[in-house]
Structures are given as structure tokens and as C-alpha cells.
């Protein structure tokens, strides 16, 4: 049996807005094993964002248990969750969230800065390796405002890889990119998946679900579909099929 990375048991999350209680998640249970590439889909209001915040240890459930890499997160305090985010999770955001006027390498080093066990030299080495893995070895000293959207997202992915996380959480990672660049990023995610990384990809775009190995669909705070993807499409093929850009 594969090692389970994420285990959700009857997760509920309520928000109190004024006098009303909004049930964002109404009892969700599933687990994700090591090496899976899961897409979580749903229209707006389905509980996607709440799910992402919970999986990312940014939030805690009102009810239910969440185990990340067999560690119970539900009962952790703020600082403990900071530490677990630092060590076990890599985030990739829609809007990249790179530090302005800062080089690619320094951006990638950032998560390691909050982990006192790394020395300055180790940080640099790991950052350069991560940038190599996303194909940006020639852009180490480019500042974030000197790069294209696709390059910035690659830097963000390198930043998510640098701490060797057990889980990479991507939030609409291709949302701000044009079709071609979006496919390029999907190619990168599929390559990472092949290397054995566990990836959770949150999106509202059903097309992207075709590239992942398992699809979870949320509606009104409940899982309405959870099935493995039998026919995983290759993002590389799609990219090659696109009409060549004429410069």
C-alpha cells in the first residue's frame, strides 16, 4: 500500500458572517497517497478555497481531523502550523507572489531562510538546484520585474520545491497565463509528478483536470465526484499541437 500523505476525516468548516453561519465544507473525507497528482475542481462557492486553506495548514477545520504526512494538523497552534508549512508544503499561487526587486535565486531561497538548520551556502546550493529543475538555470540573477509571467511562475514553483515538501499545493497556478505558457507550466507539473512528487492542483478550469491522475469535484461543500483519471493527457503533446507562434 502506498504511503498516505493527506487524510481528511469528515472535515467541516463553518464561517460566521453576521448572524448567519455559512457551511463552507459539510463533511469531506478522502485521502491522497504519495505520488498522486490530484486536481480539486469546483465552481466558485463550492468550498475550493476553504479546502485549499485547510490542506495548506493556513486554516483549521471546525470539526473533523486532518493528517498531513501522518501528523494531526487540526489541533496545532499558529506557530506549529508555520513550522509544518515551512517543512512539508510548497505553495504555488495564481499571482506568483514573488518579492519585488529581488533576484530569482533569492526568491527561491526564502522558505529556507525561515528554517534555521540551513546555512547560507546550503540555501544557495538548494536554490540553484531547484531553479535548474524548472529550467531557469540561466536566470538566477534576474530580478522578478525583469521576467515574463511564465518565468515568474517557474521561479514560484522552484520556491515550492526548494524545501523538499511532501506536498505541492497549486492554487490556479495557470490562471494568469496565456494558453501556451499555461501548457508549458502543466508540462513542468507532469514532469514533477513523474519524478514522484505529490501535487494537489486547485482549479475551476475542467480542461486542466485531464492532465492529472485523479479528479475530485466539490459542490456546496461536499465531494460529488472522486475518481482516478484513466486517460491522462500529455501536456507536452497538447503544447506541440498548438499552432507555432509567428514572430
Amino acid at each position, binding site marked *: 500500500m502506498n504511503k498516505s500523505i493527506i487524510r481528511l476525516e469528515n472535515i467541516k468548516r463553518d464561517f460566521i458572517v453576521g448572524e448567519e453561519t455559512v457551511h463552507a465544507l459539510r463533511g469531506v473525507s478522502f485521502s491522497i497517497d504519495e505520488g498522486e497528482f490530484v486536481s480539486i475542481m469546483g465552481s466558485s462557492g463550492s468550498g475550493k478555497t476553504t479546502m485549499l486553506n485547510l490542506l495548506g495548514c493556513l486554516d483549521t477545520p471546525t470539526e473533523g481531523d486532518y493528517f498531513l504526512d501522518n501528523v494531526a494538523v487540526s489541533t496545532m497552534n499558529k506557530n506549529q502550523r508555520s513550522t509544518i508549512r515551512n517543512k512539508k508544503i510548497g505553495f504555488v499561487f495564481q499571482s506568483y507572489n514573488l518579492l519585488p526587486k529581488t533576484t530569482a535565486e533569492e526568491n527561491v531561497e526564502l522558505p529556507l*531562510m525561515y528554517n534555521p538548520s540551513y546555512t547560507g551556502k546550503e540555501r544557495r546550493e538548494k536554490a540553484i538546484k531547484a531553479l535548474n529543475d524548472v529550467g531557469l538555470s540561466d536566470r538566477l540573477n534576474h530580478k522578478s520585474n525583469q521576467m515574463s509571467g511564465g518565468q515568474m511562475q517557474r521561479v514560484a514553483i522552484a520556491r515550492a520545491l526548494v524545501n523538499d515538501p511532501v506536498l505541492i499545493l497549486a492554487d490556479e497556478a495557470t490562471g494568469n497565463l496565456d494558453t501556451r505558457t499555461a501548457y508549458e507550466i502543466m508540462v513542468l507539473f507532469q514532469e514533477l509528478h513523474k519524478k514522484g512528487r505529490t501535487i494537489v492542483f486547485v482549479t475551476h478550469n475542467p480542461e486542466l483536470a485531464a492532465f492529472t491522475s485523479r479528479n475530485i469535484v466539490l459542490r456546496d461543500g461536499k465531494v460529488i465526484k472522486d475518481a482516478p483519471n484513466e486517460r491522462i493527457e500529455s501536456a507536452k503533446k497538447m503544447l506541440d499541437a498548438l499552432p507555432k507562434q509567428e514572430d
Partner: protein
Amino acid sequence: MNIGNLIKVSLRALNNNKMRAFLTMLGIIIGVASVITMLAIGQGSKKSIQSQISEMGSNMIMIQPGTGNMGGVRLSGESQQTLKLEDYYALRDKTNYISACSPTVNSSGQYIFGSNNYPCSISGVNSDYLDIRKLSIDEGTVFSKQQIEVAAKVCIVGQTVIKNLFTNGEDPLGKVIRFNKIPFTIIGTLNEKGFNSMGMDQDNIVLAPYTTIQKRILAITYIQGIYASATTEADTNKAIDEAETLLRANHKLKASDADDFNIRSQEEISKMLTSTTDILTILLACIASISLLVGGIGIMNIMYVSVTERTREIGLRMSIGAKGRDILSQFLIEAILISFTGGIIGVLFGLGASLLIQFAFSWPVSIQLYAVLLSFVVCTITGVFFGWYPAKKASQLDPIDALRYE
């Protein structure tokens, strides 16, 4: 995150907003510089007054007859005849802490030389008086013991008197001037001393043997006062105690009787004058501190702007593992760096301004090390104090909200 990395991150943030950081710093620079300059001016005038007082003789002790009463009528000290020559002899011979001692008797009148006349008092003293009052002979000599004993009609004159009587530039030495019709031979002249801090001309002075004044002018046997010098400035209080005990014994006062004399030292006058400049210094320092406070509020303001502007950055840092205290230290160090750098520049400016004032306006200026250290410490504390609140606010942000902040 360790402190070195935090400082690096803060420096980069300041570097990204150079103009803003500089303008914020300017508030602190002006505050610190003005505190240092104002204290330097205040302390400078205090020192200059103190040095003028010590020129008058810092260990000087003045003894005057005290007030008394006669049949229920209170009398002024000047009309009292309680101080006698015996008191002077006792102070001169039987004390340990008094190094020099001179009786004084004064009279005032008109001096005449040739066709010039000039009003001035005459002080009857002995040769110790010059040491006590820090006077020195320019030309000629001080009167001798023998001249005091025979009540010789000799005198020593100050420069102002010379200027007014010897208008044709004659050499005053050996000349005879008349004081209220009594001829005095000038045996010495005094070096110029100028005005003292109370505006008195210290050169408007004529000295003669006290015996001469007592016998030939006033026809009295008592003395009007005694000037003495304590052995050192530090021993002034011991000397005062000693003189008091001696005079009370001489005057046969019972324990229940009040002193019939007053003893004053320069210390009291010095205290009175320096307290005025102390108030001035405090006032100046208060005004300067207000500008430091305003500078601190400037820091707080800009840190607020900075936290708001960088909300997403804070969100990102938290999402990749920064704890509240990492964010708190980051912004706090930024505020401290602004105030610290501003403090250093402010100290340099303050020292420069103090020296410039001394050089350009020739005001007495005294730069105080404690003022430099104090304003430096205060401005760093200002940074922590005013940086704390915005930094705390930043550290308490919710990463979920911060990440989606527009």
C-alpha cells in the same frame, strides 16, 4: 530567521524606498541634532558663568555682620558692629581650613588728581585680599606689613580708576591722589579683570591698608566684613563650619542664640546663577525633544504605510513558514535601522552645528558626552516604541487574508 538575515531583509526594504527612508530619517536627524546642539548651548553658558565665578575666587568665603535687634527694633546688618579685629585675628591664626584672610572696611567718596575727579569707593584690606579675590599686581607692589601697622596713606588702584584720573597717559605709580582731601600715594596698579557675570566692573577698585581706612577715614574700631579663602574648593564647607564655631565662641553666643553674622560662599552665588541656566537648558532640551517625538511619529506613520503596502509579502512569508515573531522582528528592525542611522547622522549634525555656532557667533558651547549618548539611546528607543505597533499589527495578520489583499 536569524538576526543577520533579518537585517539584510530590512536593509533591502529600505533600499527599495530610499527617498522615503531618508525623509523619515530626516525627522530623527533634526530631533537628535537639535537636542545635542541645545544642550551644548545651555551647558556652554552654564560653564562660562561657572568659570567667571571661579575667577572671582571659587573658594572665597564672605563674612558679614548679621542682623540683630535692639529693644525689639530689628537692625540692618550694615549698621551692626559685631565683627571686630579680634575675629579676624582668630580666623587668621586658629583655623585649619582657611588659608588666607582679610578684614574689609569700605568708604566711598571722590578721588582727585590734577584737574580730574572720579567717584569710587575705597576698600581697606590686607595683602591677602589680592589672593582671595584673584587680583594681581600689574606694576608696583602690595602694601607691606609695616605700612599696615602704621596706617600708611598708600593705595593700589584698578585700571578703570586709572583711566578716569590719568587722562593724559601719565604713569600712575608714585603719584599722589586725594580721597576726600586725604592724600594717598599710589604704590601699585592692578591687572585688568573686566566685568563679572553680574555686570560689575571689577577694575573700578582702590585698595588701601585696612588700618588706614579705620583710623584716618572712618574712625572706627570694628570691621565691616571678612574675606577668607578656604584651603581648597572642596573644603569650603569645613572652613565655613570652622569659622562659624570660632565666631560664635568669640562672640560668646549661647547655644540658643542666633548667629550675629552671615557667612556666604561663592557656592551659593554659583548655585543661584547656574540654576537659571539649568532652567534655560531644560527648556531648550524640551523643545528639542518635541522635534524628536515628531520624528518618532514620522517613523510610525511610514511603518504603517509600509505594512499596508507589503501585506501580500507578509502573507507570502507567513505561508512559507514565517512565524508571527519573524514578521514582528523584520518590521521592528526596519524601524530601528531608520532611527539608528538617523541617530548617527543626527549626532554628527548636532556636533557640527554646535561647533559652527561656537565658531560663527562665538557663543560658549560645551558638547556633553552624556547628551550625545542620551539622544542616541532615546532615538533608538523611539524607533522601537513607534515601530512596535505597526510591526505587531503586521505579525498578527491572517495569512489567508494577507495573501488575497488587493
